[in-house]
């Protein structure tokens, strides 16, 4: 009972589990959001509800009527889009007034600003496409089943597929017979989004894995605190404890499934689902087109939950055995990482039709990404016999689980925890011996960087930062126009892009001649001419070379249109910097080395300088992983020659008081950003110096800096007052400063950078002086004072 209580009543562990479940729900919701910015939550809910209502309304209607209704709906959304873009000027204005009154969705959009309303319309149009695609699937399902049968018949007649005993023939026959069973399945139209969203939400599988890992780590705690021997010396510290832990893991798997998948399903259904849909055949969902078992959606969900719990338990057992077999905690973690990365690489990158596909599906990730076993249909060749990937993976599950239970119990009874005699420890010993010479030649500064990268897992975190940085989006969609005149105008400007010479006038003249008096083209050419004259006038006044460039790419990456993208990326960069710098200072406290270091000749100022340098280097790598990609995104879409042209050639900076080229502007922008991010790293160093453990440091920094930044990025504007996201993104202040020459726009940046430097000085004083109170000591002092007052 004590072990159950230890595992399930640990406040920190259980709150981490709950936080993971909460994060899973938050990311699920964020995944449904059509955009991030003001009212994003409201827009998301409106769009999801719109989908559910539309699907419910059309559910029992015939195919023809559904298509007509969807077309009408799409037309209405289209009209509304242009109505919101051009207001009263648009021809559809009067028609729209009555349309809005008849639609709950459009009436709700009327209460939103233009940006969220337009995003909602675009999302709703995508939903219409989704419903159309679903309708195509429903209409063509039985034809699809028939085609598999026919194809199988034709293939069986062809000699190229080998003899009757060959894998190909057997595979064809198996596939045909399995799909033949689905002839009487009735697929129906309905609100699939809730269930498809639940099935395809990949992150839930990884959050579930995290929770399982948290429970597995609970079983290894005694090793980390060095009381393995004590536990094993107790009467019930071996086999019986092992049995209890196996049962605990089983219960934890079930509870975690309820928490993460149950919670996700509940959220998904409440957003865009309809409980009436649970009785439909699961093949009604497009993602289950190839599923060859007959189930209702509700039945499949129940089965999936049970399978997930069993898979979670098996994965937990695998991790536990792997981590428990290797005595040294560090090596066992390294081995775990190696195994998980290898399995992931095989699972993700091995082609489905590869001859090695058994290792792709007979893989730990088949038990993590279990939905793949239901959405993918594939037979694997095992001794010339076809076996379905689901049959193999789920069929082996009980065998693997029993084997792991047996192994765990044997280990619990027989294995001696002390001695470090495992193979990996020996190999690591040889490696240490070989590399010691190199390490001993490192300077003190080199040592600090080495410690940050390898002892504090900085290299590992940076690798993740670089990978995650690749998935960031840097461009915002800019609605240019649907106006015929403006479309011509943009096309002429594209043709004329480059230095502005007399050739431009010749081009305009020839374009006028070929415009055939088309009013839109003539008006566009007038506008181009006016633009060119304005460019010449400004260039002459400012003494710079006039260049015709489109500022669309510039605006989509650095402009006001990209404010939300910039905000999101700055928030993620903040999280990156916290992740890489938070452990630099508390590491010494955790190692118990502070006093020894400080007693050395170069243990104060020099060590602090090296630590700062390590933090700065890692911060720059994190910055580079984001900003290099941003620059690359800009350059790949910008007109050639934009970098060397004056910023005044861009319409958005036409009135700028500064004479500088675009690349100089970018240089200044990135310099300001780097200064702001460096200040952040100094703040992180200072705050983390008050914590004694790395975990406490991460927690404190996430609460102080990470959470407000994320909330702000997600549209909670109130957080803008307490988070430096805008300063770090720098786009807004710099834009304002360069555009209007208002130095006051940069005040907040200057204050933040000064604060960062001040924090660094305070942090240095704290490290070098002997007064080093910690949060805990503060709390003890406060408690003592309040106690004495009560007394």
């Amino acid at each position, binding site marked *: 009972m004590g072990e159950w209580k230890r595992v399930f009543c640990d406040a920190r562990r259980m709150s981490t589990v709950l936080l993971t479940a909460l994060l899973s729900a938050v990311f699920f919701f964020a995944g449904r959001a059509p955009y991030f910015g003001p009212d994003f939550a409201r827009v998301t809910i409106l769009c999801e509800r719109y989908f559910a209502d539309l699907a419910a309304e059309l559910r029992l209607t015939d195919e023809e009527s559904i298509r007509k209704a969807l077309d009408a709906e799409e037309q209405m959304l289209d009209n509304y889009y242009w109505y919101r873009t051009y207001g009263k000027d648009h021809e559809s204005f009067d028609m729209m007034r009555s349309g809005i009154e008849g639609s709950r969705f459009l009436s709700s959009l009327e209460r939103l600003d233009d940006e969220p309303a337009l995003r909602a319309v675009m999302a709703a149009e995508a939903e219409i496409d989704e419903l159309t695609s679903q309708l195509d699937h429903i209409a063509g399902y039985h034809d699809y089943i028939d085609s598999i049968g026919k194809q199988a018949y034709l293939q069986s007649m062809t000699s190229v597929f080998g003899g009757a005993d060959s894998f190909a023939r057997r595979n064809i026959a198996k596939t045909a017979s399995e799909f033949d069973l689905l002839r009487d399945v009735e697929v129906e139209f309905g609100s699939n989004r809730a269930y498809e969203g639940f099935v395809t939400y990949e992150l839930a599988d990884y959050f579930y894995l995290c929770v399982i890992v948290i429970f597995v780590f609970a079983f290894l705690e005694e090793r980390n605190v060095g009381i393995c021997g004590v536990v094993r010396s107790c009467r019930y510290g071996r086999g019986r404890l092992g049995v209890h832990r196996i049962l605990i893991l089983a219960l934890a798997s079930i509870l975690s499934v309820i928490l993460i998948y149950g919670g996700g399903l509940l959220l998904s259904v409440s957003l865009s689902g309809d409980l009436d849909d649970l009785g439909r055949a699961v093949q009604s969902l497009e993602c289950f087109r190839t599923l060859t078992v007959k189930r209702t959606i509700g039945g499949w969900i129940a089965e999936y939950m049970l399978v997930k719990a069993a898979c979670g338990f098996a994965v937990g057992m695998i991790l536990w055995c792997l981590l428990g077999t290797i005595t*040294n905690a*560090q090596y066992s973690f390294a081995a775990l990482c190696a195994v998980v990365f290898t399995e992931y690489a095989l699972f993700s990158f091995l082609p489905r039709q590869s001859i090695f596909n058994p290792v792709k599906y007979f893989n730990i990730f088949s038990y993590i990404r279990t939905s793949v076993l239901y959405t993918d249909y594939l037979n694997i060749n095992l001794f010339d016999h076809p076996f379905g990937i689901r049959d193999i993976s789920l069929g082996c599950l009980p065998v693997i689980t029993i084997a792991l239970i047996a192994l765990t119990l044997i280990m619990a009874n027989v294995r001696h925890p002390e001695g*470090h005699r495992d193979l990996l420890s020996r190999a*690591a*010993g040889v490696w*240490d*011996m070989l590399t*010691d010479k190199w*390490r*001993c030649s*490192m*300077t*003190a500064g080199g*040592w600090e960087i080495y*410690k940050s990268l*390898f*002892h504090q897992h900085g290299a590992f975190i940076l690798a993740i930062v670089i990978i995650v940085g690749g998935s960031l989006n840097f461009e915002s969609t800019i609605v240019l126009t649907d106006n015929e005149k403006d479309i011509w105008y943009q096309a002429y400007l594209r043709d004329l892009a480059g230095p502005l010479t007399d050739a431009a006038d010749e081009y305009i003249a020839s374009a006028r001649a070929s415009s055939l008096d088309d009013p839109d083209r003539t008006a566009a050419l007038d506008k181009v001419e006016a633009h060119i004259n304005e460019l010449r006038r400004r260039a002459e006044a400012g003494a710079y070379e006039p260049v015709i460039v489109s500022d669309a790419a510039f605006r989509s990456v650095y402009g006001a249109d990209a404010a939300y993208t910039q905000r999101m990326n700055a928030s993620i960069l903040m999280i990156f910097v916290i992740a890489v710098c938070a452990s630099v200072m508390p590491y010494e406290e955790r*190692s*118990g*080395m*502070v*006093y*020894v*270091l*400080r*007693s*050395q*000749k*170069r*243990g*104060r*100022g*020099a*060590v602090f300088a090296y630590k700062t340098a390590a933090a700065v280097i890692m911060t720059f790598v994190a910055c580079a992983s984001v900003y290099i990609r941003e620059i690359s995104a800009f350059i790949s879409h910008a007109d050639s020659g934009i970098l060397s042209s004056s910023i005044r050639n861009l319409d958005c900076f036409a009135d700028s008081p500064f004479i500088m080229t675009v690349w100089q502007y970018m240089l200044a922008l990135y310099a300001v950003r780097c200064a702001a991010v460096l200040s952040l790293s100094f703040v992180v160093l200072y705050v983390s110096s008050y914590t004694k453990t790395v975990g406490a440091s991460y927690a404190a920094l996430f609460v102080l800096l990470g959470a407000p930044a994320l909330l702000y990025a997600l549209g909670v504007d109130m957080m803008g007052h307490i988070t430096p996201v805008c300063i770090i993104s720098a786009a807004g202040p710099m834009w304002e400063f360069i555009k209007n020459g208002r130095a006051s726009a940069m005040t907040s940046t200057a204050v933040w950078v000064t604060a960062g430097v001040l924090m660094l000085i305070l942090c240095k004083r704290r490290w070098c*002086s*002997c*007064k080093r109170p910690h949060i805990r000591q503060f709390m003890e*002092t406060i408690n*003592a004072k309040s106690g004495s007052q009560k007394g």
Partner: protein
Amino acid sequence: MQLQLKDITKRYGKKLALDSLSVTFTAGIYGILGANGAGKSTMMNLITDNISRDGGSITYDGKDILEMGGAFRAVLGYMPQQQGVYGQMTAESFVSYMGRLKGLRGRNLKDQVADVLALTNLCDVKHKKIGGFSGGMKQRVLLAQALLGEPKVLILDEPTAGLDPKERVRIRGFIEELAHDKIVLLATHIVSDIESIADEVMLLKKGKLIRISPPAELIASLPDTWEPVGVRMSLEDVYMYYLGE
């Protein structure tokens, strides 16, 4: 060579850890005896400037150690009571790293690292990670780093705790050898360690200096009526007489 503590006071909240402690150390071994919480580690942390003092001054050869800063730490070797080490480093890497922080480099660093590892009997395990070491081995690693850079002031807080008797005798002999041109402050609960090597023994009780004299003098100062703990009078009797409740 003189290390002088004058009217040193240190408080932890309401608790007085050191009460106007004044003492002068010259070359030699000073054994520091006191019950738990008597102020031994506090005194050592004050000398190493790891905690701030509430009053008094500490001077080395007449100069305040706070003003000397790095110059004082260059002559300081400190071995703490807690076994804080970088578990991921090997013994050799760790000692080399500490050597770098003491300002050693090149051949000098390499030679000194080899010497201190040999002195502390760690040559066989120098390529092993410290995380896997026993308490006694960690103790020797910490002692090794304290000996680097030929310190003039060596502060050893419980240096022989956790060592086996053979190793203890070896280390004790080694400290005795070192002491002719150094100030060695040795705090320990193992009274026999001090008795055999200390030139003077300092008795601390509740933050106050009770007495500082050579061991023989202390033993002789015991009253005739005192019943020895063992077969003969020893420092244990001194401890019991002066520091026992």
